[in-house]
């Protein structure tokens, strides 16, 4: 395999630049073409015609965080599994298939323990998570 060079990364940067350019260009066109008649009522947040009460930046239920928490753990585990999965076939062809399988499966089994724990404790239930956990935690 011949080593690739840095120029292979160019499209990534170019596409990001094109996205920014499209954004700026679209904004520019909009500034040129769009009418500008601001009024106070127009720029109130839309709440079906009612006068908004308070700010929307208020507290949210903790279950959003618990979902994010489970996500990030799984995300990191999948990151670590990617290089091992990428060479799994190669190891198998070299005759280390059994060893690779053991390494891989023991990694995944700990992942399964995590999801089983969260399932049992009710963290995966969107609605019931509150009642179940109050029972378990006193």
């Amino acid at each position, binding site marked *: 395999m011949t080593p690739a060079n840095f120029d292979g990364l160019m499209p990534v940067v170019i596409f990001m630049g094109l996205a920014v350019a499209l954004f700026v260009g679209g904004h520019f066109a909009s500034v040129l073409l769009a009418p500008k008649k601001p009024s106070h009522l127009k720029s109130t947040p839309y709440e079906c015609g009612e006068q908004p009460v308070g700010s929307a930046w208020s507290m949210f239920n*903790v279950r959003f*965080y618990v979902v994010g*928490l489970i996500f*990030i753990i799984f*995300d*990191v585990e999948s*990151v*670590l599994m990617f290089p091992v999965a990428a060479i799994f076939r190669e190891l198998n062809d070299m005759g280390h298939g059994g060893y690779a399988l053991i390494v891989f499966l023991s990694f995944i089994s700990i992942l399964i323990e995590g999801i089983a724990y969260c399932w049992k404790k009710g963290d995966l239930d969107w609605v019931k998570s509150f009642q179940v956990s109050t029972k378990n935690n006193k």
Partner: protein
Amino acid sequence: MMGLASYLIISLILFVIGITVMIARKNIVAILLGIELVLNAAALNFVAYSRFATNNLDGHIFSLFIIVVAAAEAAVGLAIVIRFFQIKETIHVDEATTLRN
């Protein structure tokens, strides 16, 4: 220009800014942001040394595990922040005076 020294200096500036954020802020989430900066500076150092000083990729593995540990740290740290907020109704770090609850 793209030598070892420039990467080390970028990493040092990042580290120093992270330390400053950790000291100057009184908001616990902002302190966690500073910790992330510090950890990233360390990981950047590992990868830079791995390219310029050695011929193997052990530095990459190290920074990979730093990223893993940083994610776990952020998860647990933010959980503590949320719990702290439920008890004290603030996330000012000076209010964290008790070791129980």
